[in-house]
């Protein structure tokens, strides 16, 4: 039987207060006009409970934009690996971002295991938050099946009228329940209300594109010579925004830096993007994907084809960030629909 608890809305401020006394808590915070960012909080007033996907997804806590992997000393001929991590609670993760974290978990647990990633992940507690309605018109979470929770959290909050009904998924999640001491057992009425919310969601969330989930991969696999990529070639600026904000993009560059003593230094990894001019450049200056259209095609194939082959999972969560952020207004839903139209 699933374990559900209840947190009265009036107790929510206390919950954040007690939680943030014991843990570093990050949650969605408003960053101006329709922009949000996961930021450290210590009070519920700071949290945007109704938010659209944050500028950067929570992946920034699992694989930070810049992270030290090792340090070296030339004269002593030493090279030591470095693990950087911190205890953290992420509050308010939407279901699409839970799916994004699951994708990263799969990749970084594949051989060879990424110890730095895993060390971080093991110290992060995740509190999910159900969306009872669409964020905006960019989302395509229904077709990607990430509009409802599929695990990947310690606690999961669903908003009811007077309270939150909270699914306890792990021992660590139970720890939070005990620590804050504000939760009570869910009654059958609460469970019924929750079912009502889920039923209402079924009516709101409909496939956002003209292609069924299972037909996405075959469609992309046939798309190599498509005119759609030529169109994107003309429109894309190669700013890399779409990949940097994507919860499932994980490409990075490794750089050795040296301190001012010119003897000691460190090795870092830093996010990279397949959209950047230099990404596929090799020694001699040759680039495998010189054209922007090729780079865009690559980005889409890395969501809808290659990972399906390797991990049996689509690497798009339908969060809509790539479309929301694109200045050239290149839109994932439109790209999929354009390919579907060609296929007919």
């Amino acid at each position, binding site marked *: 039987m699933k374990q559900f608890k209840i947190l009265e809305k009036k107790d929510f401020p206390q919950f954040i207060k007690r939680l943030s006394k014991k843990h570093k808590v990050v949650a969605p915070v408003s960053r101006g006009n*329709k922009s949000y960012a996961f930021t450290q909080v210590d009070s519920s007033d700071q949290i945007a409970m109704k938010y659209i996907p944050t500028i950067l997804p929570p992946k920034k806590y699992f694989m930070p934009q810049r992270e030290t992997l090792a340090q070296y000393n030339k004269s002593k001929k030493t090279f030591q690996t470095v693990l950087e991590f911190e205890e953290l609670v992420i509050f308010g993760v939407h279901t699409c971002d839970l799916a994004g974290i699951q994708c990263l978990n799969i990749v970084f647990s594949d051989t060879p295991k990424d110890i730095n990633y895993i060390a971080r992940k093991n110290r992060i507690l995740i509190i999910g938050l159900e969306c009872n309605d669409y964020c905006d018109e960019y989302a395509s979470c229904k077709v990607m099946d990430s509009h409802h929770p599929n695990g990947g959290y310690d606690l999961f909050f669903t908003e009811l009228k007077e309270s939150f009904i909270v699914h306890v998924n792990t021992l660590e999640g139970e720890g939070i329940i005990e620590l804050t001491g504000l939760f009570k057992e869910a009654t059958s009425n609460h469970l019924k209300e929750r079912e009502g919310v889920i039923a209402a969601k079924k009516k709101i969330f409909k496939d956002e594109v003209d292609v069924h989930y299972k037909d996405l991969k075959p469609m992309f696999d046939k798309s190599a010579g498509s005119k759609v990529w030529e169109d994107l070639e003309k*429109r894309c*600026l190669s*700013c890399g925004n779409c990949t940097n904000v994507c919860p499932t993009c994980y490409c990075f560059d490794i750089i050795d830096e040296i301190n001012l003593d010119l003897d000691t230094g460190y090795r870092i990894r830093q996010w990279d*993007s397949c959209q950047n001019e230099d990404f596929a450049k090799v020694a001699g200056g040759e680039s495998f994907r010189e054209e922007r259209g090729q780079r865009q095609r690559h980005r889409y194939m890395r969501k809808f084809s290659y990972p399906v082959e390797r991990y049996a999972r689509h690497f798009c969560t339908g969060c809509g960030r790539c479309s929301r952020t694109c200045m*050239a207004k290149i839109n994932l839903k439109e790209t999929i629909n354009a390919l579907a139209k060609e296929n007919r």
Partner: protein
Amino acid sequence: MSKPRVAFFDFACCEGCQLQVANFGEALLDVLKLIDVVEFREVMSEKSNEKYDIAIVEGSITTNHDIERIKKIRNTAKVLIAYGSCATIGGVNGMKNNFPLEKIKKYVYNKDANYFDTIATKAVHQVVKVDYFVHGCPIYQPEFIEVLKSALRGLPYKVPDYSVCVECKLNENECMYDKGITCLGPITRAGCNSWCINNGNICYGCRGMVTNPAKNAQMDVLDKYKIPLDWIKNKINMYNKAGEQAPEEK
């Protein structure tokens, strides 16, 4: 091993980049452990007497005399580092190239115009070979230090060839375009850690453009955000004009 002798020189500029170096704070002490500064007009009165290994040059080339002088510096220095937009891309001095030379000369010097020797603004590498570039107006201190470390080790320094947007996104700033403000981030090369935008300002394009700025796509964006082309052109002109020759007098 004796420390390399380093001389700082300036041409047409505001000397603000020198100030940035003088203001390094604690890092300056570490820098001084590595190099022997033998000439630096803004902080010392000693001269190098033309004995130096590394020349660090600020400012753009705007007179025939400048050309002679920079050639001499190039001949003496084993390594030449151009720093600051004026030196690396011509910078604000390039705005001069928007006008016919004679006309701008008269405008500035009036009846004394004939006493002044002036040429169209040039970045340093348009006159002599430059080994390292530190772009920016002013320079971004951490990048200057990176370049210096590369130069001292004889390694190349790679200026990023992607746009400021990349760093701006990593810093999780709200996009200026979403606020309804035009910004040159999408076409300007990164390396400054989106310094201006982090502090609430727009990108003015002071680092010069990426090698492949996707002109057509840019026009599309302007169209979509209903930004008049002139606005962007004027913004670009502020720093990026030295690549072009001054128009002929009509």
